């Protein structure tokens, strides 16, 4: 392979737009399918109206409110993050992950690979899990975002967090925020019928410490507890 591209050049801000509506489903079972980046977008089309929501990307072409933003220009994006209204002014190429970590100071969400292969950056958008490195902040105008910082209510941990602690489902904590968010969604989606099903539907979140056996137990435990509560 010969390339004139600098090797460092495809790192930050390499953009692979996620399927906004079905991010989680689209990625979970297909970790090993090819995720190709076209490189940083020079210009992207964004929905100008506030509150247009994640669907704006898909429907942008037919939307009269659409405007084009050039490289270097910034856009104001309003998000609801962990129940709080937050506004960030970002270049269109800034990922939701970078907006959270670098603009909003929410460093709980981790950047493990920045191209959707590891899952450390998983957050909930509108209740669905997505990899926040694979979506641009501008694509999430008006969206409700939940990060690991927003799961506990005060000192009371979310049941999934409690289950992870109880089952020792992590070691270094690098993948943990992503695992937790993914687990919350996995339970919500009802993909906890068996250990094998949990393993499959949690397979988009890599753990190099390989706490998988305990993660599966934690997810199962939290799912069972949830069922009991609902009854």
């Amino acid at each position, binding site marked *: 392979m010969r390339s004139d591209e600098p090797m460092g050049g495809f790192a930050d801000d390499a953009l692979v737009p996620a399927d906004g509506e079905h991010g989680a489903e689209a990625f979970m079972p297909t970790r090993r399918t090819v995720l190709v980046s076209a490189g940083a977008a020079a210009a992207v089309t964004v929905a100008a109206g506030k509150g247009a929501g994640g669907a704006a990307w898909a429907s942008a072409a037919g939307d009269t409110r659409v405007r084009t933003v050039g490289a270097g220009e910034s856009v104001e994006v309003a998000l609801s993050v962990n129940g709080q209204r937050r506004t960030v002014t970002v270049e269109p190429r800034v990922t939701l992950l970078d907006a959270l970590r670098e603009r909003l100071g929410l460093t709980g*969400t981790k950047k493990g690979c920045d191209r959707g292969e590891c899952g450390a950056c998983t957050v909930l958008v509108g209740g669905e899990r997505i990899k926040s490195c694979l979506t641009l902040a501008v694509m999430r105008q008006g969206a409700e975002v939940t990060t690991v910082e927003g799961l506990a209510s005060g000192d009371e941990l979310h049941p999934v967090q409690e289950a992870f602690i109880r089952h020792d489902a992590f070691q270094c904590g690098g993948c943990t925020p992503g695992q937790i968010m993914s687990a919350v969604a996995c339970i919500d989606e009802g993909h906890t019928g068996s250990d094998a099903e949990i393993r499959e539907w949690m397979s988009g979140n890599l753990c190099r410490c390989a706490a998988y056996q305990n993660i599966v137990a934690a997810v199962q435990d939290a799912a069972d507890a949830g069922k009991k509560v609902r009854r």
Partner: protein
Amino acid sequence: MTSTLEPEVGRARLRKEDARLITGRTRWTDNFTLPGLVHLAVLRSTEAHAKIVSIDTSAAKEMPGVLAVYTADDLDPEGSIGMPCAWPITPDMASPRRPVLAQGEVNFAGEGVAVVVARSAAEAEDALASIDVEYEDLPVVLGLENALAEGAPLVHEDLGTNRNAVWKFDSGEAGSGGDVEQAIAEAEVVVKRRFRQQRLVPAFMEPRSCVVDPTAAQLTMWSATQVPHILKTMAALTLGIPEHKLRVIAPDVGGGFGGKIAVLPEEIMALLVARKLGKPVKWTESRSETMVAAHHGRDQIQDLTIAARRDGTVTGLKVELLADMGAYLGLVGPGVPILGAFMFNAIYKIPAYHFACTNVFTNTTLTDAYRGAGRPEATFGIERMMDELAAELGMDPMELREKNWIKHDEFPYTTVSTLTYDSGNYEAATERAMQLFDYEGLRREQRERRERGDTVQLGIGISTFTEMCGLAPSRVLGSLDYGAGGWEHAAIRMLPTGKVEVVTGSSAHGQGHETAWSQIVADQLGVPFDDVEVLHGDTQSSHKGLDTYGSRSLAVGGIAVVKAAEKVIAKAKPLAAHMMECAEDDLEFANGRFTVRGTDKSTGIQDVAFAAFMAHDLPEGMEPSLDSEAVYDPENFSFPHGTHLCAAEVDTETGRVHLRSYVCVDDVGAVVNPLIVEGQIHGGLAQGIAQALYEEAVFDEFGTLTSGTFADYLLPSAADLPSFTTDRTETRSTTNPLGVKGVGEAGTIASTPAVVNAVVDAVRHLGVDDIEMPLTPMRVWQAIRTGRSAAGGPGAEAGGGLGSIDSTQGGAR
């Protein structure tokens, strides 16, 4: 009441670390920001071997937000800075200078060529594309045997050779055993095999990162490192910074697995740039950079010869290794294969042993420690050979092992490689594992499947391993020319309110030291678990240490904590006697209380700590403090062991391997926290299994890493691994007061040969006696179709994915 009646050591305590990790309050280096912080981005070579004709940085310097662009000539005009290698394994070792940035020549694809400093990380990254580098190609040296061939082009012309060093051990010469050549010549059976340890990537979840603040009183560096103390000393030596003017902090570190035992060019670069600009700087790598520029692991060719009698008695073992160093020497890189030198004889009584390793330079990413470091390679070699010998002899492979292993009543046992194993019970661990596994039942099923010609065949793989850990007795390291000792430091501060701060030189990155050390101290001092805080990873609070690697934290650092606690008690005793107006000899200390023997009169250590703080009424000459520190140098390594059994189903039509069950019974000595031990075993197993089945760093013929993403380099996911059945036997170490042995690497060391043995066992009747790792469906299928010779040959792929499309050669050869 300050006593704890139930012992803390042995309890499955939930981890103290969990609360912050689970809520997103993890303090990674990349999370830190400082006023005026600027960002570094490194331009990396696209060429594996080339002269740098010119570097034009003028356009990059005009890019928005860019403050500066530096090359090696800017940062080190004299070319005098070289990254340190702390393990010169032989006096005549060939050692190239590893510059901070490539100077005149690049030696692997991924080596830094220039660094951009900009106001934001994105602007720094953007500017990289505007740097114009003109290269003049040099011949790319790839593959161990190619590199050693007569007339081969050289990675480093000035060294005159691609041979880094040759290191030998011979039991005949050492007087620890016989002459292996004679053993081979006289043997009734000789089996020879060549195995390849493919190249692996540690692939910790947190990419490497460092922040340097030159505006603080001490030059302060935060780094995602396993070795803050070593980094501090080495950085000071490398740059001539007075050591006391440098402070290194390893905050929460997101995994290491050996991959963060390093002094990075980027760390040195960040120090240089921060001092040059007088501004705080941050460097955080992308995953692509981790894959190409962070050190890799393994990468050996092993030529093994085992000699035996027909009855299965092993009479000799000869090991000849070629080990790929990559383009430069890492911090301990040359010594990694040497750590295996003492372990090929493993748990067996082998009367004659010869080991020789040739370290080789190639135009690839450098290699260094990765979980197990030298010992997984050795364990793989011997455990595969035991299976091959068993097949040759027509013996059950477990029976063969049992015939040769050290019996429990033969400890302490001095091996042919001169180590003295203090304790172990291979029979007990094996018996338990065989029960849990249903060995006989699975053998029966295997026979049935063979008889009926089932398309899915079943194989059983065994690995009865030991490892040397608790690195290490300083005198042994000295005899191996290692550049430091192997002690560890701990300090205990008794606070006025009775709370306890424990300072440790072992810097954790996921292993749960804060919890385990608290348990140890709670028992030693008899204070509540929650009254103990563990401080680590900051050279300002923890000034002394040798850090975390080689399963050494508990067996060395944990014992230092015990020794420090003993000193606290010794200091407290005269004061307690003074307080209760009795003789010291009348006092006994238990559960946190000094009691006057034969009375109910007692005082708690926390009350004594308060009295020491007040200092109003101390015994004559006593300093008003109970604080104590200890440096512990182990007298021996520790030798955990275990029996791992793997049942693998192989689909003979597709080559797909399915791990049906995996049972391991480990003996890691006494256990401080079974929860943590279990987690370490799981993680270790996964990484060892991943070497067997999934992972491989592959370079194409130009020296480009083609498995440079997680779509190509296959870390196992939850769906790729079975649930493990784990159990333990407990044979305490006799060389340390806790009886502990270490557990961090056990699973990784043991599991790789268990899996490969299982797969080969499943298809041995089809004429297969080896398959190169990773055992991808394609390799297994080819092995079944064509027999051993073609397995893993041309067409060997990296398990699918992006890069392998470009890979015509395959394999790091």
